[in-house]
Every structure is written in C-alpha cells, then in structure tokens.
C-alpha cells in the first residue's frame, strides 16, 4: 500500500514503507511550463523537511524543489537529466525527482492529502 501527500510548495510525496518518492505536482509542472533542466540530489545526502533538495528550470525561470519530509536521499531519477520534458509529460509518475529514506513518519502525516491539496490549488 502506498499513500500520496502534497505540500503547499507543490511537491508530492508517495510513501511505501519508509521510502518516500518525491516529485512536483501536475499543477506545478503546468505553471512552470516546459522543463529544460533539472538538478538532482546525490544519493546519501541528508535533507531536512522543507530544505532545498533539487532545482527545476523552464525556458524562463528556475525554481527550487524542497524535500517535503526529512531523510536520506537513496536515489535520483537520472533519466530526467537527459529528458527533462518527462516532468511535464508525467509529473506524478515517470517525472519523479528523488527518493528518500524517511526519518520521521509524523512529518508525512502533517502534509495535505489529495482532496486538501486540490482545495488548496483552487484557492490560489
């Protein structure tokens, strides 16, 4: 069983056991426009919840991607380096950014569920 939660910075995080997969939401990908470059964290790097973890750039602008939950990076989606357009094509699937070994499950529980995130986006 996996569960997906969302941040107010428009990241999604899917938890399977203590492994969290992180990406940017469809809304974020649409707002950003065509992604031309991503910078991903190295495996082994420790990040705190809300800390800068990756960078995503469109033709026009650069944006930070924050770690929704704290933990140690276990993998990065290196396919995005050659094909950054995957972030636009499938932001909540093949366009994932990195995986973390979650340090505190309570941080995950505090994030928005899908319904709450949809309400949040509507209110923007």
């Amino acid at each position, binding site marked *: 069983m996996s569960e997906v939660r969302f941040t107010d910075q428009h990241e999604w995080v899917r938890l399977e056991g203590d492994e969290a997969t992180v990406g940017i939401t469809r809304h974020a990908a649409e707002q950003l*426009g*065509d992604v031309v*470059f991503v910078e991903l964290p190295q495996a082994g790097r420790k990040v705190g919840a809300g800390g800068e973890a990756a960078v995503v750039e469109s*033709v*026009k602008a650069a944006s930070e991607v924050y770690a929704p939950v704290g933990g140690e990076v276990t993998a990065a989606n290196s396919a995005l380096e050659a094909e950054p357009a995957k972030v636009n094509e499938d932001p909540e699937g093949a366009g994932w950014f990195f995986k973390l070994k979650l340090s505190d499950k309570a941080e995950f529980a505090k994030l928005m569920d899908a319904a709450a995130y949809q309400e949040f986006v509507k209110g923007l």
Partner: protein
Amino acid sequence: MTDTNDDLKFTPLHALHLELGGKMVPFAGYAMPVQYPAGVLKEHLHTREKAGLFDVSHMGQAFLSGSDPARALESVTPADIQGIPEGMQRYGLLLSDEGGIKDDFMTTRLAGEPALYLVVNAAMKDADFAYIAQMLKGQAQLAPAPERALLALQGPLAADVLERHSPGISEMTFMQAKRVTVAGAPAIVSRTGYTGEDGFEISIDGKDAEKVARALLAEAEVLPIGLGARDSLRLEAGLCLYGHDMDDSIDPVEANLLWSMGKRRKEARDYPGAGRIGKHLQDGAGKKRIGLRPEGRAPAREGTEIADKTGRVIGRVTSGGFGPSLNAPLAMGYVEKEFAANGTKLDLIVRGKALGAEVVAMPFVPNRYKRAKK
C-alpha cells in the same frame, strides 16, 4: 515597477489574448501574454520553423515633425539619422549627456513624408518621449501615437502569409518600411523584428488591430506567440533587452553596439557623451558585452557572477536562459575587456558552483534576414 492588476493597461488585443488562452502577466504597465497554451518551447520553435504573431502594442510609437527632424534627433543619438534613405528604418541608441544608453529605438523615414516615425521600448516610452520632447524643444515636435497598435509577424513563412493580405509585400527587403494596407487596414509595415528571423512589424490603428490579428492567425502557418518566446528568440539572436543588457550606466562601446553609430557621427563627435564615448572608441572600454555558452545543460540566469579560472569575479550575466533552437543554455553579459575574446574559458557561478563556459560570437543562432542583394 509596482504593477498591481488594477492599474494595468490593456492593448487593443486584450480580449483576443484571453480568448486564445494567453497567460497574462504584468509587463511595463500592461497586461501581456507571457505564453499561450502551446507553451514557450513550442512557440519558440514554431516561430523559427513557420510563423509567429506577436502583440507588441505596448511599445511606444510616435512621429517627429519639424523643419529638419532628422537633424534635430541626432542631438540625442549617435545614429546617422540624416542618412536614412527614404523607405528605410534604422536602429539607434538614445543617449544621456554622459553617453549612457537611455533606450534603443527604431527610426523610419517613410517615402514622401517629412515626419520621422519612431518606435521605442514599452517600459521606457514615457521617459523617452519626455526626454526627446525636452531636448528637441524649438527644433522638432514629438507626437506620441498611443492610438496605434503594433504586431510582429516573424518566421521563415511570414512573407508568404503576409503576401496573402498585402499583395507585393514580400518584395520588401530587410529594414525597408512603407505604408501599405494589410487585411484592408492602413498600415506602416517594416521588414524587421526581434527574433533573428525574417519577418515584419505592422503598425496599425488600434481599432483595426483585432481584425488584422485574426486574419493572420487564421492562416495555417501562424501561431500566437507570447513574451516568453519573444525573450528566448531575441536572446538566441544576440539582441539586447533594455534594462537588462544595457542601461544608462553603459555606453555604446561597452555594449558592443558600435555598428549603430554612424561613421559620419563617429568622426564628427557631435553626439551626447562624446567625451566618454570618444575616449572608449580610441582606447577601448574597460568592459564589454559578450555571448557565453555554458557547458552542460544548466542555465545561468541574469545576475549570475562570471569568474576567471582563478575564481576572480570579472563580470556578470545580464540575460541568460535556455535556447530552444540551440537546445542548450546561453547567456549574455559583461566582462572585463581582457576576457572578452571569443574562445576565452570562464566560469559561471551557479548556486555556488563554478560551471565552465566559453565566450562565443553572437548571434547564437544564425540570422535569416532577407537582405537586399548588393
């Protein structure tokens, strides 16, 4: 600039932008489409492949009249305005008394018309018009034309498309300008643009703007293009954006825009800031505008520090991003003159890391202007 949505101005095409799904953003006091549903990347590539229509009605248009408006205008620019042949447009820099660049602008001498037609940048138009009117007081009269709209049709198929709505127009060559009708509307058309492609700029009365825009957009080759792609296209073409790649602290020698100074003007030294600029012409300036190709795929944005290979900061990026046609990052900036030669290896400090880059000639993507055959 503190734009709130309440005091934004609309161009005559505002309703059409909304209908086309334009994502509207504040720019130079106007609500302007930064992109349409196709997105910046596709809009950019479409313009290079076929034809794109841009609304640039926010730019400042004006007519300068008087007994000798060309001679009068030369008191604020080093361009050879008196030497513009009838039916031609020319690029020029508006200079302060100290030789700093206040703006760049286009001057057109229409056949059989004593008044000159001017186009200046949107963000600078109020300041420019006040400055020109004041400096030329008693010699020439400036009449802004806020009722006019301005469209740009750019790309390799622009001439084919415009020919259907203005028969004979495709015989014009680069930098020519004339009065014609487009889709039945009286227009001033020049074969110019801001993309590096062949194309046209079409000045029409605001009340005709939607009719003309719809006629051009109805052609299969044409997509509407927003400000996002306008910026990436001009950067690939090596063209400056005022307020970024030049401002009033920069002179024409530093900006590497010497070609915009008339030969007669250089020799006569009869332009504003002739002391500073003349010295730079003779001895060279301490810094120079250059093009940079970063290694890898990470863009270096405006403000990025440029360092030499010892780590010393020797300049700064003034425009930077990703070039869709180049399929690579690209940047423009200023460096100390010793580092301005093509082929010089430098570093760009992006998020605290040094990324290698090389000084390259501009344009980054070859121009495809339809020049007159010599």
